[in-house]
């Protein structure tokens, strides 16, 4: 019996989300970004911010990974959802 074809190897990646004025200034709201295979240096939200050329927008006020606030130098893992958040104004 012939073997079924192998599924294509999934590149380790993270999803990046922008909100509010950050999204409008950047002109996009969601991107899938491949992670460095070697993991050296480790991927962090701060590194992604530079990699995505977002420094011109200043600094994000907060960062969330998988719906939890994290510091900008938290180490990311494949499949993480990274959200860059402008200043919050709720209520």
């Amino acid at each position, binding site marked *: 019996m012939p073997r079924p074809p192998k599924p294509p190897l999934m590149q380790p990646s993270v999803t990046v989300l922008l*909100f509010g*004025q950050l999204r409008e200034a950047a002109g996009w709201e969601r991107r899938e970004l491949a992670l460095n295979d070697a993991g050296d240096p480790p991927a962090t939200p701060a590194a992604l911010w530079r990699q995505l050329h977002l420094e011109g927008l200043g600094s994000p006020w907060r960062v*969330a990974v998988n*719906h939890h606030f994290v510091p900008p130098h938290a180490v990311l893992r494949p499949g993480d959802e990274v*959200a860059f958040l402008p*200043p*919050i*104004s*709720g*209520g």
Partner: protein
Amino acid sequence: MPCCGPATRSRSCPPSAVAERQADLRIRLWNGTFDPLANLAAWQEELPGESSPAAAEAHFIGRVRNTTAAGEPLEALELEHYPGMTELQIKRLAAACARRHGLAAVRVDHRVGRIAPGEAIVLVAVRADRRGPAQRALMELLEAIKGEAPFWKREWSAGRGRWVGNTPLAGG
């Protein structure tokens, strides 16, 4: 700094004698209008009554102003949120506040999307055993939501939108 953040404890927030009680937390985001008084009445009906020692409630209803922060006529307030995280974060804030004050129940209703002047934007209600914890918890949870739950406001006036920052407590 809000008192109800996940890792903070203020001297103004003494733990209640019933702090270990599991609070009833009900969080809901609304894409359309909601009637805060009807929701409040429904919440009171649904909660256990006579069997509960909680005898004090504090409530807050916030509505959209009819002017912008700059004093111009407001057409609408747009409220963006982070689906999934916003609900979760309000629940975390409510749970932390409930633990700190020994609340029996918390209800938070919050609008998202485009909201007309005069419409309700937020309802926060808490139930506790005494008026002190109820009033303190209400104020602190409101401030926590304003500063720690991912919402972003944009005022629309004369066809133009402007993102706004958070309002200080004194300015409402």
